[in-house]
């Protein structure tokens, strides 16, 4: 994805009470509504379900639960939307864990695509930024009573997989 002429970039904007989450639009390529779920057999509570995507069964990453528990975010509305990402270029840990090049991520249904000017994003304080970047938080934006966090899906997946949450 290229920067538009007015210095903006497209993000998936996931809405929570007082917190917004941005995910770069280049990190997913499709979306589906939550359909019939089955157990994945994986122990990690964020990866316990699989859904049907076309003719494939793909692991469902409960990104909403991850954000809820780690960001103390309160969900707005229903949680039935999934975006689909290609993880073939992601690190080996992720691909070996999922045993697939595709993952679906569960998010609140009120999410939308939003064009955001890069000048609205700020790096986190230097003393914190490197450590937080490893866990997937790479920038933020502050507006009156709301904070928005730009997260990196690959780093979030790595962190979620490596966190013992069973």
């Amino acid at each position, binding site marked *: 994805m290229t920067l538009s002429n007015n210095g903006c970039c497209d993000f998936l904007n996931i809405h929570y009470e*007082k917190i917004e989450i941005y995910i770069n639009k280049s990190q997913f390529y499709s979306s589906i509504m939550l359909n019939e779920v089955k157990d994945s057999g994986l122990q990690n509570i964020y990866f316990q379900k699989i859904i049907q995507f076309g003719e494939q069964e793909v692991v469902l990453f409960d990104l909403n639960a991850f954000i809820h528990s780690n960001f103390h975010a309160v969900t707005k509305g229903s949680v039935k939307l999934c975006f689909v990402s290609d993880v073939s270029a992601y690190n080996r840990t992720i691909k070996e864990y999922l045993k697939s090049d595709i993952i679906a991520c569960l998010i609140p249904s009120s999410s939308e695509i939003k064009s955001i000017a890069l000048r609205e994003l700020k790096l986190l304080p230097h003393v914190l930024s490197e450590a937080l970047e490893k866990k997937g938080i790479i920038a933020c934006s502050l507006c009156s009573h709301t904070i928005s966090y730009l997260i990196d899906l690959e780093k979030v997946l790595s962190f979620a997989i490596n966190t013992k949450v069973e």
Partner: protein
Amino acid sequence: MENSEIIDSLKSNQSSPPEDVNVKTGEKFVIVLIGEKKFALPELIVQEIIIENEIHYLPFTPHYIRGLINRQGEPYSVVDLQILFSNQMLEAKKFVILRNSVDKMSFIISDILKIVFINSNDIHFIKDQNDKDAYFHSSITHENDEIPVVDVQKIVIRIQDDLE
């Protein structure tokens, strides 16, 4: 645009870190109240005091980092020294913004008491540190009070160690 390009773009727009401030200890200090206790900060490292800013929760950080506040659109970390010193959260709404545009750090405080000039005779450097002095490099004597001077560098080192 990939996230790595976004990060590079944001870093290139960030202002350069200021030249090292020659902090002349032993001159002016800002005395603040944190809970019931007084602490001092060298006046040269204090940028400003702000009030009533909402603290936004920031995950994956040590418990003494309460979150982020918005200072003119820039995120500043909020360090609760009362949690660091005595494991008790401070209920307060004032923040000391430190003069360091790279670290963007603030301390939450109960109140700012005064700015005072301290003679060098009344500044006592701590030579042999024990645990309770771990975050102070000196103390000042003012109106019969012995007030510890917070060593910001040690706070930063503690944060870095805890984040590793």
